[in-house]
């Protein structure tokens, strides 16, 4: 028996409820709007928040790109992409520039986003104060009272212990000078891409039932002290071993045989585009040589 699912899987009532939450999230940048997170055909913690946002906003004209830790080909990304494609029929792509909706886990693409695009980020833990306060009732109150001493204390303790802030990902940010927000576990390298972004950024946490947003052209500041300024991961003097790119976020890899360390672009579609471009240049050079 072949069952035909409703467009974008959700019933219209579910979409409406999520859409209303998204509009509130945009109107109150960085504030976590509660929503009735639906059961999804993937496990909670596997990107249900992002998936619910994508399914609620997507239309027939959209082009979807899904990435997981920078890769378009990982199991999670491919399956989410397939699920959305099968239930909506929308086109999918790996080219960042072609996509109108980009759902991502843990990265913002290297190619700058545009006004035509919506970035959807999957969030495991949306509460930046969760590490210092386990009670949701209390963290909601702390947000209401604009009391973020817990987040500052966490960074201060890291400086005391390690001499620097030791957040490897999910470094808290202050949005529109009011709400401290977890930018989802993106590397610090990507925090700066949220500031005055041209694209709308939506963040969804399915298990924690929260939706929040960073509208375009909004101030997003990473928390830091005057004497310990915010620093992003440095790749000085490093380059991608495939496409030779510099100034991008790279994975550190180790050759098992020689023990040698080498680097590779984390954003696979960027790396591929760079490689294709170089190949093109190479062909032209051969043409001239003849």
């Amino acid at each position, binding site marked *: 028996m072949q069952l035909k699912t*409703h*467009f974008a899987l959700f019933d*219209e*009532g579910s*979409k*409406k*409820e999520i*859409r*209303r*939450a*998204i*509009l*509130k*999230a*945009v*109107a*109150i*940048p960085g*504030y976590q*709007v*509660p929503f009735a997170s639906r059961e999804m055909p993937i496990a909670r913690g596997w990107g249900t928040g992002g998936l619910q946002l994508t399914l609620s*906003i*997507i*239309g*027939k004209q959209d082009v979807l790109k899904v990435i997981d830790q920078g890769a378009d080909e990982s199991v999670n990304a491919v399956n989410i992409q397939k699920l959305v494609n099968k239930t909506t029929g929308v086109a999918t792509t790996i080219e960042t520039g072609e996509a109108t909706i980009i759902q991502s886990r843990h990265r913002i693409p290297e190619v700058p986003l545009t*006004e035509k695009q919506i970035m959807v980020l999957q969030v495991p833990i949306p509460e930046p104060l969760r590490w210092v306060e386990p009670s949701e009732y209390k963290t*909601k*109150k702390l*947000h*209401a*009272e604009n009391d973020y001493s817990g987040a500052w204390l966490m960074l201060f303790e890291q400086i005391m212990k390690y001499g620097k802030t030791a957040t490897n990902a999910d470094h808290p940010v202050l949005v*529109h000078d*009011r*709400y401290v927000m977890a930018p989802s576990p993106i590397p610090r390298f990507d925090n700066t891409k949220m500031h*005055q972004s041209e694209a*709308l950024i939506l963040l969804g946490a399915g298990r924690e039932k929260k939706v929040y*947003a960073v*509208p*375009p*052209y*909004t*101030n997003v500041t990473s928390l830091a002290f005057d004497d310990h300024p915010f620093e992003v991961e440095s790749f000085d003097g490093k380059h991608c071993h495939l496409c030779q790119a510099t100034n991008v976020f790279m994975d550190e890899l180790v050759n098992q045989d020689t023990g040698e360390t080498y680097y590779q672009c984390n954003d696979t579609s960027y790396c591929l585009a760079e490689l294709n471009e170089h190949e093109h240049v190479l062909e032209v050079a051969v043409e001239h040589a003849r």
Partner: protein
Amino acid sequence: MIIDVVHDTQAIFRTILHCMSRPGTIESIADIGNQAESQGLCYDSTLLSAMTLLDAEVSFHIIGENVPLIEAFLSAYTLATVAELQEADYVFITNGTNKEVIHNVFSQVKKGTLTNPQQSATIIMETEKLSNDPQLTLRGPGIATTANVQIAASEFWTAKREEANQEYPLGVDMIIVDPQSNMMCLPRTTTIHDCEVS
């Protein structure tokens, strides 16, 4: 009324989302659901916005003329319930409503609480004309530098809106529509000033 409840409401939602995240941007929904018949009770765009946002989980309140007719119409199509102004999630202000009544709306509507600022009303307001002529200057999130807009009869409510939004994150968000089905949004974060004379 012929409207595709799946794809038309999706397209209208994306227009509202685009406008809400970029205050001052005016987008038209004239091509969407052009069979909508609001029967002259309100603008087509008002009806389409209601169809997109309302369902049985939320409440609304109508301000203006023909209130019982519009109430019956919207409840029938969306299953949303009618509520008092102080309780309503969505407040519709039809064109031609006088200044005192609009003032009262901005004083009375829900503005959320500090723990739950999302529990505030969204005002859907009809105006004669929307354009990007320099009458008002907008600033805030979603706007790169400044945006200029002209909203007919905005002098009726800009000061009252500012009062309603003075204790951020509390406040009201607005969707403004005109008879040509143009749409513009003003989230609570947007500040409005008169354009300086050029």
